[in-house]
Each structure stands twice: as C-alpha cells, then as structure tokens.
C-alpha cells in the first residue's frame, strides 16, 4: 500500500499544483474548496428534502388516520407508491421522465428535481411513522377531543398531534439521518455533492483512499450532528411523567 498523501486536497483542480494556503484564489479552486462546496450541496439537498418530506409525510400520515375512506385510500396509495420504487429509479423519473411529460418543468433546475425526488421518497416513510404515532395513542384521546366540542382538525391540532410527534421523535431522527445518506444518489443526475466529488476527485487524483475517507468522514459528521440536534429537541419537548418522555 502506498503512503498517505493528504496534500492532495491542497492541489489546484486544474493544473494539479499544490497551493500553500490550501484554498484557491482568483477563481481557481483546490480540491479542498471543491470538497467543502460538495458538502454544502449534500446538506442543502438533505435539508430541503427533509422539509418536503416532513410536510407531505405528515399530511399523508394524518390523512391515513382520518375517518374518511377516500382520504385514507389517498394516503395509503401515496405511501405504497413512493415506498416501492427504488430511490435511484425515482430520481431518474424526476430527472428524465417528468420534464418530458410536463413541459413547463423543463426549465426547473435538476437540484429542485432531486429535492422533490428525495423528499417524496422520504415522505412515504414519514407518513408511516406519523400514522403509527397517531394510532399508538389511546382511542379515548380522539373521543375526548371530539366530546369537548373540538372539530376534527382541532382535535388533531391540540390533542393528537402534540403527543404523536413527541412519540415519533426517535424514528424521525433516524429518518433524518437516512436522508443525509440517501442524498448520495443525487450523484447519478450530476448534482455536485459529496459522492460525485468522491467519484470525480478519485479519478483525477488517483488518491481514492484519502478522498473517500474525507467524504465518508463528512457524511458521518453530518449524520451525527443531526442525531445530537434531535436529541436536544427530544429533551426539550419531553412530557413530564412519561417513560423516557417519548414513549421509549
């Protein structure tokens, strides 16, 4: 095995010369600059996709617990559709098929399409968790809310959801960490995120191990940061008197 060469990150991406400060200047960039920008893309794709997934996943999960057959069916169909097609295929659908079928979407940047693809894929998983969280509550909670004169939306807003969300924080945490990992498939449609950086920088520098270690490390750090942040949230919203505060 060859020896380590971490200086590869200080190299200019065009002429391959080592830049003393490790950061490029005047429009030239080093591999370190590129790595950091790729990390930024990974985090942006993940954060926006998580937002989409939380909104749509919550909506679909709630629909599946309502007493209306049609809405339950809609939520179920949504969940099964986005859960049973591989993420990579879904990304290709968003990138190649959807713009071809819906011409106005042709001018939408691929970044947005990937966010939608990853977001809708994850929304199916979050819908499962939201549904499970609501159904884990005692049936009397819903009846009590309605008996108090709340409308159905009010019962959800003030009685069911505040408890359900606290209960599902642990699975939501792992789903948020999964979204960072899953954002790696964006490389397949040329989003300049960490995995695409790994592939291209490995090819250009032949320093695959150093490049992959750096990228893997950044994925690890990102997922770990989410884990800590969610733990903080979990502690802040803990319901006094419940085991572990969150049903766990």
């Amino acid at each position, binding site marked *: 095995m060859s020896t380590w060469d971490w200086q590869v990150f200080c190299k200019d991406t065009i002429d391959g010369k080592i830049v003393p400060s490790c950061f490029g200047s005047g429009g030239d960039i080093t591999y370190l600059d590129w790595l950091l920008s790729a990390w930024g893309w990974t985090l942006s794709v993940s954060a926006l996709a998580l937002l989409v997934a939380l909104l749509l996943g919550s909506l679909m999960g709630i629909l599946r617990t309502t007493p209306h057959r049609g809405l339950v069916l809609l939520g179920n169909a949504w969940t099964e559709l986005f859960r049973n097609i591989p993420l990579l*295929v879904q990304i290709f659908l968003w990138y190649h098929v959807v713009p071809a079928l819906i011409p106005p979407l042709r001018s939408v940047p691929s970044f947005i399409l990937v966010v939608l693809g990853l977001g809708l894929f994850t929304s199916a998983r979050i819908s499962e968790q939201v549904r499970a969280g609501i159904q884990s509550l005692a049936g009397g909670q819903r009846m009590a809310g309605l008996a108090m004169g709340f409308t159905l939306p009010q019962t959800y807003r003030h009685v069911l959801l505040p408890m359900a969300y606290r209960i599902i924080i642990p699975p939501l945490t792992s789903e948020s960490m999964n979204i960072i990992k899953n954002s790696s498939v964006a490389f397949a449609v040329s989003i300049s995120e960490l*995995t695409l950086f790994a592939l291209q920088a490995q090819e250009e520098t032949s320093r695959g191990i150093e490049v992959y270690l750096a990228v893997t490390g950044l994925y690890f750090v990102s997922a770990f940061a989410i884990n800590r942040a969610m733990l903080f949230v979990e502690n802040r919203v803990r319901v006094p008197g419940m085991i572990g505060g969150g049903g766990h």
Partner: protein
Amino acid sequence: MLALDFSFLTPAVISGYVVKGFIFSLQLTLIAMLGGVVLGTLLALMRLSGRPWLVMPAAGYVNTMRSIPLVMVILWFFLLIPLVIGRPLGAEISAIITFTLFEAAYYSEIMRAGIQSISRGQVAAGYALGMSYRQTMGLIVLPQAFRNMLPVLLTQTIILFQDTSLVYAIGAYDLLKGFEIAGKNFNRPVETYLVAAVLYFAISFSLSLLVKKLQQRIAIVR
C-alpha cells in the same frame, strides 16, 4: 405533450437487454440475503455474547456500516478489493461481496432484536436439559427468533432488492442498467425508465403484500 411509444419493447429486445440484468439483480438479492442473514446472525451472537473482545468489533462493524451511505460503501469496496487481493474484480462480483457484507449489518440488528425477544426461560430450560450453548442457540433460541423475525427479515430483503439498483455507481449490469441501455439504443429513455419503475413497483409491492399476509398468520400462531 410527448407521445409515449412502447412498441420497441418487443420480446426480443426485452430478452436481449433486460433479462440479463434482471437475473443479476435477483442473484445479487438472493446471495446478499442468504450471506447477510448468516453473517448477521453471527454478528448478533457476538454482540450478545457479553465478552468485550467479541462485542466491540461486532458493534463497531455494524455501526460503521449503518452510518455510511450504501453508494459510498459500494465505491469503497470497488476501490479496496483490488488493492487487497492484488487484481481487479468485475463490478458484478464486487457488488455481490459488498452487498453481502453491508446487509449483514442490517440483518444483524434484526436478528439481535429477534434473539432478545425470546424469553430467558427458554435459554435456562435448554441448559437445564443439559444442552450446550451451541445446542441451546441452534435448537431452541434461533429457530424461534427466525420465525418471529421472518416478516422483518423479508421486509429488509425487499429494501435490499430496491437498493441493488445502486450498483449503477460502479456500472454493474443490473435490471435498471438493462432498461437504461435499451432506452439509449432505441432513443426512448422516457419509456424505459417508466417501465423500469412499474416493474420495480410491481415486484416490491406484491412482495410486501405477501409479507403482510405472513405477518397475520404468524400473529395468530403466537
């Protein structure tokens, strides 16, 4: 609006492009499932053994694998295997090794939960009958753990089947690749991606219905 035209997907085209990839995807899924369950069970037994020199490497392996994106794991193995064995391996073989070792981490978590769901009295009963550790595990604990966890193991296998599409990263010829190449050659990428999505959906969805059925049957027995 673009007119869709599926007429180029004749049986000859399908058997020429898609079948080869489909067979590889199935092979990859089955080998990684069997290998992953065996290795995963060993990892789970190591983690539950209570001996630090067995627990720590197993826990480290499982947690590392579970915190790295699968695409990166595929790339890592594709880079490292040739360095270790001294000659390049094809993308297909590399994918089979990667998926087996990667899925072992996920199956081991399932098996660990399964083994922990068996009451301690079962182990005690085994020992009281004069059985060794190996006999108690092999004849009493593991068969029950497998049965309890069968639905979860199969659900993980459906996820595994979907994940096999990620061998795209190293260019292995799988189901998705077969469709992609057919789409490129006939200049019909929209249609081939659509058919690929429908096929993946049909397989995964019908398998998940089967798992649901199985779950109900197991629930009654319990």
